[in-house]
């Protein structure tokens, strides 16, 4: 699942997938700005067939947190 998320990020940000580490966050990836964050949220909703609530959207600012949020929704 983590790899799939990295793949989606790579497509949306202008970053090769190898440069997206497990510690990726809005601080470490220069293209993970607020607009791309929304693109990411929508792409993840599309990909996994789920909807994030408002808090989740605002809080999932690192790869770790995204994985955790998805797990909480029953995905693996």
């Amino acid at each position: 699942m983590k790899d799939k998320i990295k793949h989606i990020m790579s497509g949306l940000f202008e970053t090769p997938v190898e440069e997206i580490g497990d510690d990726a966050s809005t601080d470490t990836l220069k293209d993970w700005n607020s607009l791309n964050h929304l693109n990411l949220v929508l792409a993840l909703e599309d990909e996994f067939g789920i909807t994030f609530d408002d808090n989740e959207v605002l809080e999932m600012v690192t790869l770790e947190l995204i994985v955790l949020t998805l797990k909480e929704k029953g995905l693996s």
Partner: protein
Amino acid sequence: MNNYFELKFAEISAEAKRLEAAAPPNTAPLKIAFLRNITLDPLVPYLKYLCLNENILPSIYMSEYDSAMQDALSPSSGLYSHKPDIIIAALTLDLISEPVATSFASLSPAEVVSEISKAAGYISSLISALRANSPATIIIHSMQTPAWPAFGILDSQGSGFQTAAISEINNAIRSAAAQAGNCFVMNLDSLVARIGSPGFNDNRMRHIAKIPYTRDAFRLIAFEHMKYIRARLGKNKKCLVLDCDNTLWGGIIGEDGIENIKLGPTFPGSCYREFQKAILNLHRRGVILALCSKNNELDATAVFNTHPDSVLRMEHFSSIRINWNDKPGNIRQIADELNIGIDSMVFIDDSEMEISMVREMLPEVCAIRLEGDASGYSSMLDSLGLFDSLSLSEEDKKRGEMYRAEAGRKQLLSSAMDLNTYLASLEMEITIAPSDSFSIPRIAQLILKTNQFNLTTKRYSESEVEAFSNSGDYEVLYLHYKDKFGDMGIVGAAILDFTGPESVIDTFLLSCRALGRKAEDIFLSRCVEICKAKKNAAIIGAYIPTEKNAQTESFYKNRGFTLKSETAGEKTFILEASDAPAPAPDCYKSVITQNTGRIQ
């Protein structure tokens, strides 16, 4: 490009980036500038994708959020230094008139009037400023009519309510645009109507990020912007080329006859009639119509000349190619005859094979396959937006006549380029084998039904066919066809007669669905092979003319046979024992010459 409405945002985004990086250096540049009071960034990948797919390299300037008027009024703003060719003002009602948008019920009638006039004033000033400072084409989004207006069911009843107020503001926008010149309104309501307000407007994203629209909305908006861009650049399509069978009517005219094709007031004929009306509508807007059909010309034209429910008549078509030649060649001839560019043509056909062939051999033509229920055809045509234009002149309305009067029916060389390569790419699998109990019913059906590609049109019953099959003096053969698009089943039949001193091809026919792939050639080659193996004698092939089989008149002559005699139109051809037969075509993936089991 054909699956623009299926791709996800991430895929469109990635593809747009790829296309931009790979664009050849001479791609036509187009500078677009956006004025906005909403976040429009999600629109950009869609618009770039569409532009790049039509060989336009867009360079996009996004003005500051909510600074539309400042940008428009200041000649030194980034907006003008970008030197845009197109300026798009995507403004929503909250900017133009917040009270009308969000608190209409609190306004007194006098306040409503004042708000409308303020809004109209704002728009006029904006457009005037833009027009004064830039020669660009201006596109203004209209104000959306709310799905649930401020006064509910009362709202639509009179002129003092929210719906009417917004309508007046839109009228003011339209007037200001007409006055400025080179300025056009984009009606957002018709976009919303396509997917509904909940499908278009995104309240969640509007609150989180000031993005009021869904991805699907941006997809539609970009698609609509593209229609304006195409019209402005003169890249809108000019000519619609149409197939006939199962496109302009249900059924096959050459097989079913004019009384049995589906075209009329009841289902499914009603679908085709409606489709014809939509096509005629395009013609009245200035689109040139042409026909490209594999048929006997008289059969097809009879429908337009005499069928009471045909909305389209011969006079509506400026060029026709109704013959048995390949469609890419015919379409090229139509373009030459009408003296228009191949890239201004749209081709519509129900056949996957014909569409695929045109896409391969004439990629500049926009080839569209009719799929699914005929009831969807007229909306599909309306939704294309390929012919949209920003003006309508008397000349437009008469365009078809003009082309028809000028064009002669010049004889041009047909385009056979790469035909063999195309055929080879179909991965055709042919089986030509002796009949058996499984195939006899289908063979008999073909013998009774086939009219067009039928050399002698001899009709035999199933028991007669069975008798021929069981007799040692005859050979009954079938041809089974399959390609990468699907399995057509048994589409050809032949009966060889060895009772006399010479071998005679008594019956030779092919279903018209299977024409255009040299199947008749390989079938004849195999028949000749079998005859020569059976006895060392001449082979006779006869042509007995009927109203429907004129296309087969020279069939034997073109394949190495010589005309031996002719009586009252009936021709007898002969291939002497010493004559070499025509070579068999080699464009097939496989040719099997025996029964491989049960074949339907």
